[in-house]
């Protein structure tokens, strides 16, 4: 990464060996965000005492380090403050270690850099105006305050990690976010403790909703920052270096995404997310082959964007078959084969369901579709980077990818469109013909760089993450089920992605349980949490009883979920389910031996 940037920036160490540029090695890529600024600070006046030149003056280290620290202070402290509240320790300590290493190695690097003096005014002008006055101020800061800033930032991070105000409960508190007054729900507590306390740091709930979105992996943020700050060119500008560097980054990201799924980079089109990718796949393919093929097949448990796209195509005159799923959540392959007609253009089945975590038999479906010459699209937003996928082995023709489900930024995704044999797609978005004419519009370089980095990180971490998440998932399910009776897991337990656990707690309503677990960010399939008061259609499709559909909670375990968070969630869940069951008339009736199905309920 470093080599491309430095080769055409003459003011960076032109005499330094491109390969030997220390920034290119090592994990500390944050420096790349501030090459202009870094050089700006080390003014080449010689030290009056020792008479040393700019390169050798020890103050240089501090100035550059100060600037970095200050910026890192604001950026990183913001990020740290956010991440510490929601993540476990593992990546925080590794981030801190890499940040510390950055300062140490930066100090060493300062000595070797040289710049020509005459380019100083140009570079000062080249910086955006907002940076100017800040830099002037920072230049005055000495080395002592530099180290002070570093220590302050680290102290802040450490305090945020370890301290929690208010009375400490019996359970371990390190890394947990707790609210005052949580652990004594039945005590006579005055009414206003329910309000968020004004004093003290703002505590945030534990994040156990990774199917909704995921936090940014710090390595992804590292990769994105330079493109948000300095390398802001439009990748489609062919005439200047800003465009060239942006395009290079975009193509690098494309290669990273392609290698994760076993595709060719020319088959990856960047979009604004999996919703847009699904729209392109379904509407684009259907409309292109409209003259000969009028039929599509999908399932009842697909994501809303797929179902809604199919509905809008039905309004255009297409026919859509919505395949039912079995109780396990998996489709019946024989039904699929029976549903394929001579005029079927596309079959769309999602790889991993976002509500119940069920894995569909993608390889078998791919085999069936390719033998019947039907295009196969899969919405792999929840699966990419978490389970191994290969578009050639599984005979997938189109695949939707979402960045913010794999620890990347929100607002970007990709669609894989096979080239051999070529899948033709009618473009939904017209414009300048970017992305091979299939999705016009400027490609957002920082976002796609983030997506590419997320994919590369996911490829490296897939095995470790899967093992760790499986262990935590087992732990959560076993601990809940052995302490509470009448808990049902929705979805097939075998063909299941372990990070998405959907449990129904009988005789307890989902929203009241979510309200009880207010220190944990969770999601429910209950009607009360949806705007339409209808329970989740996925749970209805797998045949869950309506009252169990109202009682379901989805637990998400991700890369940054710790064992402590899982244990805390389990403990609170057990405690509150027991309490709510005490308050439930259904539980009382069941304890008395009444069969609930025999009662005639009054409707309201």
């Amino acid at each position: 990464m470093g080599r491309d940037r430095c080769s055409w920036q003459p003011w960076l160490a032109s005499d330094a060996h491109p390969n030997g540029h220390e920034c290119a090695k090592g994990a500390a890529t944050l420096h790349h965000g501030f090459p202009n600024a870094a050089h700006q600070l080390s003014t080449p006046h010689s030290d009056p005492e020792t008479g040393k030149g700019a390169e050798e003056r020890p103050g240089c280290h501090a100035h550059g380090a100060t600037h970095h620290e200050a910026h890192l202070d604001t950026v990183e402290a913001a990020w740290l403050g956010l991440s510490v509240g929601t993540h476990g320790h593992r990546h925080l300590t590794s981030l801190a270690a890499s940040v510390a290493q950055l300062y140490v190695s930066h100090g060493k690097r300062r000595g070797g850099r040289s710049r020509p003096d005459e380019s100083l005014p140009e570079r000062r002008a080249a910086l955006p105006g907002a940076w100017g006055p800040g830099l002037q101020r920072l230049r005055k800061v000495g080395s002592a305050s530099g180290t002070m800033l570093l220590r302050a930032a680290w102290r802040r991070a450490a305090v945020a990690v370890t301290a929690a105000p208010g009375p400490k409960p019996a359970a371990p508190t390190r890394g947990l976010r707790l609210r005052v007054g949580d652990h004594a729900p039945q005590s006579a507590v005055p009414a206003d403790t329910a309000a968020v306390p004004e004093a003290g740091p703002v505590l945030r709930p534990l994040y156990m909703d990774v199917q909704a979105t995921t936090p940014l992996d710090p390595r992804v943020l590292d990769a994105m920052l330079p493109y948000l700050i300095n390398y802001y060119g439009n990748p489609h500008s062919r005439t200047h270096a800003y465009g060239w560097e942006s395009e290079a980054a975009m193509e690098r990201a494309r290669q990273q995404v392609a290698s994760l799924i076993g595709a060719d980079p020319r088959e990856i089109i960047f979009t604004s997310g999996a919703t847009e990718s699904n729209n392109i796949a379904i509407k684009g393919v259907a409309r292109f082959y409209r003259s000969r093929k009028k039929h599509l097949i999908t399932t009842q448990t697909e994501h809303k964007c797929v179902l809604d796209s199919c509905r809008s195509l039905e309004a255009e005159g297409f026919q859509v078959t919505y395949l039912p799923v079995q109780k396990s959540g998996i489709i019946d392959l024989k039904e699929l084969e029976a549903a394929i007609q001579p005029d079927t253009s596309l079959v769309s089945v999602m790889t991993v369901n976002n509500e119940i975590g069920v894995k569909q038999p993608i390889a078998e479906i791919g085999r069936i579709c390719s033998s019947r010459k039907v295009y196969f699209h899969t919405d792999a937003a929840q699966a990419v980077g978490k389970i191994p996928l290969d578009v050639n082995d599984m005979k997938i023709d189109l695949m939707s990818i979402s960045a913010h489900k794999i620890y990347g930024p929100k607002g970007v995704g990709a669609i894989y469109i096979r080239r051999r044999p070529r899948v033709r797609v009618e473009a939904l978005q017209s414009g300048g013909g970017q992305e091979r004419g299939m999705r016009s519009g400027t490609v957002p370089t920082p976002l796609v760089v983030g997506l590419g980095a997320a994919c590369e990180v996911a490829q490296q971490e897939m095995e470790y993450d899967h093992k760790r998440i499986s262990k935590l998932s087992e732990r959560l399910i076993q601990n809940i089920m052995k302490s509470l009776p009448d808990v049902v897991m929705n979805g097939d337990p075998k063909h299941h992605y372990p990070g998405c656990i959907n449990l129904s707690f009988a005789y307890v309503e989902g929203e009241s349980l979510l309200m009880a677990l207010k220190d944990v960010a969770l999601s429910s399939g209950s009607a009360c949490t949806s705007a339409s008061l209808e329970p989740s259609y996925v749970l209805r499709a797998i045949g869950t009883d309506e009252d169990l559909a109202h009682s379901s909670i989805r637990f998400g375990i991700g890369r940054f979920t710790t064992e402590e968070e899982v244990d805390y969630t389990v403990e609170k869940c057990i405690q509150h389910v027991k309490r709510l069951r005490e308050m439930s008339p259904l539980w009382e009736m069941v304890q008395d031996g009444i069969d609930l199905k025999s009662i005639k309920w009054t409707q309201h």
Partner: protein
Amino acid sequence: MKFRQAQAGKMAAAGAGRLRRAASALLLRSPRLPARELSAPARLYHKKVVDHYENPRNVGSLDKTSKNVGTGLVGAPACGDVMKLQIQVDEKGKIVDARFKTFGCGSAIASSSLATEWVKGKTVEEALTIKNTDIAKELCLPPVKLHCSMLAEDAIKAALADYKLKQEPKKGEAEKK
């Protein structure tokens, strides 16, 4: 001088804005509900609802078979809301005790808890006058949760009806005697 003029200008503009808003409110004749009710489905609870949920009053059961106890069971598990409300009435027709159990969301629990608080100390006739709109106003329920207060009112009525039903055969026996 200029600053003051600008300030006055801003205040005038703000005043005009306020006037416009008040006028529109009058025109629409909409009730002054908290601003968040139309968007989020009650995830941000009013603290009264949270209070009733965290410290519910009168959870439990009374003896179903007793002649002085009326039991109302309303709702359906399929709808996600079931309320059981029990009242104990003394000889003078005054409700001396009430208990509830609810399968439902936080607003449903709060509505039934509040209902038990309100019926205590009322006579049977007075309890019939409790309306769901009163419960909703007291708890500041958003429109999407109004059905919870309606169910609470139904539960009160069902409990009173059950009590009356239990009293009638007794009256019949007394007349016969």
